[in-house]
């Protein structure tokens, strides 16, 4: 299948025509963030390096680089925040907090420890988990003291149907679909709900060892699937 992709990372006069296969190696394709150091990755590594260069520029106070990084990362990060927190306002607040942290801590980023995307996702996820746990504690207190005041539902995923799926998301979701339901469920509960393996075991009423095995096999399978797309 041949498609045309406009690559916003390049100036308009350098827009390139590319195939889906090429897109995999483009900055917009996820392997750029994961397997930038693999054999065929000269193209994709450029994308990852591009992000790292942006972080370096940000550490020097470059607002324009910050704006570019925001354009690249804000949608997946906001989607993740919304998925985890299930609340528009809180997701926006968290996104703002994370990007300001990126601005303030850009110099602490170490490219040898992971990609810029992974660095920012980790920051967002950790903060989201803190909020979820804090909310859970508040909820438990509220439930114990005033059960009638508990919220009834949220707007989680309310606008998800209207959103366009980009290539990276498509690839990841496709890989996720190839996992078993059990594996997918455990990964999502761990990643999006911030649950520990013990909490997942309790919720699913399964032994802890079973949860560990599903998580391990799920992650290993996901890694293999994502890598195999580029070999």
């Amino acid at each position, binding site marked *: 299948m041949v498609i045309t992709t406009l690559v916003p990372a390049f100036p308009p006069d350098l827009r390139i025509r590319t195939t889906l296969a090429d897109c995999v190696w483009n900055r917009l394709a996820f392997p750029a*963030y*994961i*397997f930038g150091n693999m054999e065929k990755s000269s193209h994709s590594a450029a994308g990852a390096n591009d992000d790292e260069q942006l972080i370096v520029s*940000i*550490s*020097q*106070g470059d*607002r324009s680089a*910050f*704006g570019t990084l*925001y*354009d690249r990362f*804000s*949608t*997946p990060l*906001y*989607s*993740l925040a*919304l*998925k*985890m927190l299930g609340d528009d306002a809180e997701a*926006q607040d968290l*996104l*703002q907090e994370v990007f*300001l942290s990126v*601005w*303030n801590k*850009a*110099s602490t980023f170490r490219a040898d*420890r*992971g*990609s810029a995307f*992974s660095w920012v*996702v*980790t920051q967002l996820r950790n903060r989201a988990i803190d909020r979820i746990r804090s909310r859970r504690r508040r909820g438990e207190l509220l439930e114990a003291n005033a059960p009638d005041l508990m919220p009834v539902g949220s707007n989680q995923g309310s*606008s*998800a*149907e209207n*959103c366009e*799926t*980009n290539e*990276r*998301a498509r690839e*990841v*979701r496709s890989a*996720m679909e190839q996992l078993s339901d059990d594996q997918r469920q455990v*990964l*999502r509960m*761990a*990643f*999006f709900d911030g649950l*520990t*393996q013990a909490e997942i075991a309790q919720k699913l009423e399964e032994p802890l060892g079973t949860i*560990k095995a599903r*998580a*391990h096999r799920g*992650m290993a399978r*996901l*890694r293999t699937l*994502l890598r195999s797309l580029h070999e």
Partner: protein
Amino acid sequence: MSSERLNELAALHALDFLDEAEKKELLNSGEDELIRDFAETAALLAYDAPEVPPSPALKAQIMGRLPKHRAPSRIIAFTQWMPYAIAACLMVLGIVQAQRIFVLKAHVRQMKAGLLADDTEVNHLRTSNALKDLRLAMLQEGAAAQANAAYASSHIMVAWDPAQHRGMLSMKNLPSPPTGHVYQLWVLDPKAQKPISAGLINESRPFAVEPVSTSQPGFAISLEPSGGMPAPTGPILFAVAPGQ
């Protein structure tokens, strides 16, 4: 550690599933690439969330919250230097303290040596009976000195060696004599017709006189006209009688 075990730990680590012991086991394995690989895989799970772009206004809002004047690299650089700066300060403080300790030790050694020399001298004097006949006399304030507050804190003492007919005058807080006057020291021999002058005094000093008839003469200080007198003419300020 088997590669299967490593893979399992790295996969679970990416989901924050490891306890401290397992985390340590993994991080000590040196398999950084594997750990990173799984961490990157986990980060990509972000794309599994339904895609929702943030409000377009949010970017402007965040950009607006960035500090207007900032030099992040400089700030961070300082943060990075801070541990080294603290270490350097501690090192300098350590050197200064070590130097002070060295100086203090040298001072203590010097003082010990001085004390040892004093002990030796005292022992020598004791064994040589040099102090046996030494007379120590504290001079008392006379009426003229008692009437003058300037002499209230004055202390005059004489150490007299009868064998050598010489002494040592020690003065403390003796005010300067009035203009045109001097203090004069006298040795009082009961068999002499008049006090024997031991000279003019303005500070602690040794003195010597002609042989006297007693081993315990008296001493006196009077205020005399400049140049001194052959016999006391002015008021007796301090004195101690012979034999006292």
